[in-house]
């Protein structure tokens, strides 16, 4: 993983975008993938089916190759886009495309406000939405999109924030040379 954890840091929650978002991205590819199957089925059901279907087979293969590669690019972008809550930090890896990603991280004790948003018909039915985390860190606001059960995740972040705020601060004492 691109994120390195501190020693003793415990992962509490790991969440990806809702599966429905992935399905909606893949749906156009599935539509194009069905077209050659319909074409071949239609030809086979005719009274005089064609014997040599070389050229359509060739271009169907080309179509499937492009669709297969596109599917895996979409899947990689979906699967590598991940939100991680540890007992010390919140980390959000936003994979925008194959060559563009943003990794945001903030310590839990710097979290100021957390809000969850479920907007739209499908997000309401399937219970997924966005989470916005206001922090006192350099990264002022985290926007975590299309997370399943945003209310539960929000409560979990707040609970871990309270636990982190209650915990005594770690003090490191180093001796100066010559003292």
């Amino acid at each position, binding site marked *: *993983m*691109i994120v390195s954890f501190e020693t003793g840091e415990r992962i509490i929650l790991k969440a990806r975008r809702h599966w429905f978002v992935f399905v909606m991205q893949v749906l156009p590819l599935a539509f194009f993938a069905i077209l050659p199957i319909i*074409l*071949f089925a239609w*030809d086979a059901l*005719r009274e*005089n*089916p*064609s*014997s*040599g*279907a*070389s*050229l*359509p*087979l*060739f*271009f*169907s*293969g*080309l179509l*499937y*190759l*492009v669709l*297969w*590669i596109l599917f*895996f*690019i979409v899947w*990689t972008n979906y*699967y*590598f886009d*991940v939100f991680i809550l540890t007992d010390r930090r919140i980390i959000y890896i936003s994979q925008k495309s*194959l060559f563009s*990603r943003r990794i945001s991280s903030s310590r839990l004790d710097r979290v100021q406000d957390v809000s969850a948003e479920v907007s739209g018909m499908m997000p309401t039915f399937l219970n997924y939405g966005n989470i916005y985390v206001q922090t006192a860190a350099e990264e002022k606001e985290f926007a975590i999109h299309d997370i399943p059960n945003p209310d539960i995740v929000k409560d979990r972040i707040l609970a871990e924030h309270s636990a982190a705020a209650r915990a005594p601060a770690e003090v490191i004492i180093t001796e100066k040379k010559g003292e």
Partner: protein
Amino acid sequence: MQEPFSLLAPLPPAASLFAFSILPGVFLLALALAAVFSAVLAYHWVRYGKNIINMKSVGTIYLAGVLFSLGMMFFGMQ
């Protein structure tokens, strides 16, 4: 009686030039496309997904699909 038009009919002789000159070129381009994108995806999976994905199963499924479609193209060229 003339045969009804069929999308899946065998290539007429006039199209043989197309079949023998352009199709292998397209096939080689597809092969290059597959090689480039396989390398890019493999790089991402190794670099960023070391502990996230099961490289062996994802790689096997991906390669199976690529080889299947390249095989379709190859047999379509015959």
